[in-house]
């Protein structure tokens, strides 16, 4: 078996006296979609920050195809792990197109000298980048907003633009941090369709979501993170049936969670 495209082994993250992640391990196979669920403050975003090199874990390693990833977000992205942010982090005063073009940064062959002189290959690299950008904007359904400033886009479109920008780095792994947070029902639905479409592209995805119904229908595997530790890992069916999940998840009364899960089952 080939080594996973993204693998965390024993990742622990300590902030002062607070242990945000404790010995988290999992592997993501090529083309697989993993859902990451858990109550607020369980360490989901912290895990993303460790996976993308924004944080250097206190102990444990993150690796891709057997090689450890550096603690530098830029180089992690170069190696094919891209992400979106829970609180949208677009470049607000750039247009939608420019935002995605920035995503092409790592894949563009354009040295500073060529940038400066608009020398040989400049037009070609710009044209290729713009074509790919146009494709991606089309893909996420934002082609008509190409020249609009990111900050002027509606909230849901901003989230999708962030996904397009991440996809522009040609990632083999895409980490989505609550891609439907704060959206209305319509936007949520559109975004879900988009994530299904990304899955069809064959990109491996790790997605953080609160909506278990959505996670269970989308993902191959689900990780339940509680208080910085992996509580349960398994297929949606396994996780759904696990009493520990029902007990721990969201700290909510069990029957409420159960109701939510039943609802998810009914729609399947």
């Amino acid at each position, binding site marked *: 078996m080939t080594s996973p495209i993204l693998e965390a082994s024993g990742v622990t993250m300590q902030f002062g006296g607070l242990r945000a992640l404790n010995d988290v391990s999992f592997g993501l196979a090529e083309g697989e979609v993993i859902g990451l669920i858990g109550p607020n403050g369980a360490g989901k975003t912290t895990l993303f920050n460790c996976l993308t090199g924004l944080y250097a874990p206190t102990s444990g390693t993150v690796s891709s195809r057997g090689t450890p990833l550096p603690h530098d977000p830029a*180089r992690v992205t170069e190696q094919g792990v891209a992400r979106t942010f829970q609180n949208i*982090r677009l*470049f607000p005063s*750039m247009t939608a197109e*420019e935002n995605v073009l*920035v995503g092409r*940064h790592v894949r563009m062959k354009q040295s500073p000298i060529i*940038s400066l002189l608009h020398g040989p290959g400049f037009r070609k690299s*710009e044209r290729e980048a713009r074509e790919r950008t146009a494709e991606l904007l089309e893909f996420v359904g934002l082609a008509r907003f190409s020249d609009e400033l990111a900050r002027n886009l509606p909230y849901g479109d901003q989230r999708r633009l962030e996904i397009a920008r991440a996809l522009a*780095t040609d990632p083999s792994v895409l980490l989505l941090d609550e891609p439907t947070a704060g959206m209305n029902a319509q936007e949520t639905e559109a975004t879900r369709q988009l994530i299904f479409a990304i899955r069809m592209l064959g990109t491996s995805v790790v997605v953080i979501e609160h909506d278990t119904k959505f996670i269970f229908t989308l993902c191959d595997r689900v990780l339940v993170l509680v208080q910085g530790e992996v509580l349960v890992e398994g297929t949606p069916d396994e996780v759904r049936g696990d009493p520990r999940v029902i007990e721990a998840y969201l700290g909510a009364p069990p029957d409420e969670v159960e109701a939510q899960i039943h609802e998810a089952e009914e729609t399947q």
Partner: protein
Amino acid sequence: MTTIEARAVPTAVPRRGRLDGLWSALAPRATVLRVLAGVLTIIGTYLPWATFVLNEGPYPDKATLNFFVDPLGVTGFRLHLLVIGIAMIVVALLGLPAAGRIIRGLGWGTIAVAVINGLYILVQGGGFGAVTASDGAVAFGAVVALVGGLVAVLGGTAGGLGAKPELTWRLPWWAEWLILLVVFAIVLFLVAGVLTSGGQGGVVNPYAGAVFLSVLGALGGAISALSASGLLTWVSAVSERHRIFSVVVLLVVALLLPLTSAGTEYWMTVAANIGVYAATAIGLNIVVGLAGLLDLGYVAFLGIGAFVAANLSGAAASEIGIELPFPLVMIISAVVAGIFGAIVGSPTLRVRGDYLAIVTLAFGEIFVRSAQNNIGGLTGGANAIPNIPAVSAFGQSFAAPLTIGAVKLPSGVLYYVLIVLLVAAVMLVFANLKNSRLGRAWIAIREDEDAARAMGIRTGPVKILAFMIGATLAGLAGAFFAHKTGVVAYDSFQFIQSVTLLASVILGGMGTIPGAVLGASILFVLPEKLREFADYRLLIFGLALVVIMRFRPQGLIPDAHRRAELAPDAEDETPVVDVTT
């Protein structure tokens, strides 16, 4: 087939605020008010402006004339007011789209002209008598014109400003080229006219400052009116369509300036100095405007370039004492400045924001202190490095007058040509970089550094590169500066100069080329014109920084992208309307 089509939204932009009642009360009489404003402005034109001849000599443009003398012979600020007044009436009666907006712009111009000239006469004449009535003479020109301006602003606003029209005219290419040629020719004469207006400041010409400011005021009014009519946007769209043509014509136009009224040694020197600071400001604009890194010691790079050039050009005071050809000197100066740029920029790897600004300030201070103490014998200390030889090529010294056939050009023309080419090259560098992978990376860092890193941008090297390239450009300008002025002294590179450069970038508009050039021009021409206010120069400068940050932080020519960001709630700006959807 030419299709000419003007789209405009005639509905008034809804206004909110305490003055609601006033506007609605005045609205039905808006047209009357607008015409009245024009009439008042014209009457103001023909009224006397000063009751007596001032001590410094007659105020220009016959300010002391009797009522309505020589109706066709008006000149100077009177002519400007006359044109503005007629324009107000015509616009009001024709009912153009956005007439309110246009007339309001003209009104501000009138107010500026009236206030500047009136205040000047008032101050020089020693009291209100000078601009009202005294010793049986009356002079209500300023007052009437001021009222005219105010009525224009009221009338323009009251009847609804109207949205700025979106002109989508398309003409055959030759017609558009012709229009651009005419526009750029007008720009050339405007620049020459503004530059020389009022003449050289100082004792020789006591009213230079007032005349110059008045011209600026009238021009400001005219430009805001043109902008309100949508014409400016249209012309810039046309020039965008014919980009290369426009760039070439602009360059030629700039090179033609010596043939206009500005073609004297004095104005050529002023223009060359502006060029030095404009080139430096564009370099700074890369660091501040694009990459968003505040540099408070930037003038040091200009200084480094100048001192390197001074030492390599055979100046007697230089300890190195070698003389290299000028192009080589320029390259070495630029490279050395670039290396220092990388050094000063390296703390960006660890330091952000305000703290970075302080680090650059500290580097700048270290440079000045070291230069003041003649470090390594390279800077001449308090004695400076004097007698740097002028550049010469083909036996022609750049400092000498030039004769080509029958045309005699003043000395300094060759330096002017050189600086125009240098500024053009610097602009090219800026524009090329802005629209490239590197430029986008800088802007991304400015917008959100963490997100930029998450997109794979190695922010450290990219930021250092911004400092390096900016410093290189300043070094080039420094080498030119050393030869042009012939003396390099440490006190040309003090903190206040860094602040002035930063101010010119901000005043013009961050991240734009015309902004940096305009800002540098204003900040370095004004002191020339306002010699009699030399004492108050920095005081006014400091206050102006405060006022600009408060009321127009986006600068005079804002970057289209940053406009909304820096002026979030400018109530009278056209709302961002997406016309494509």
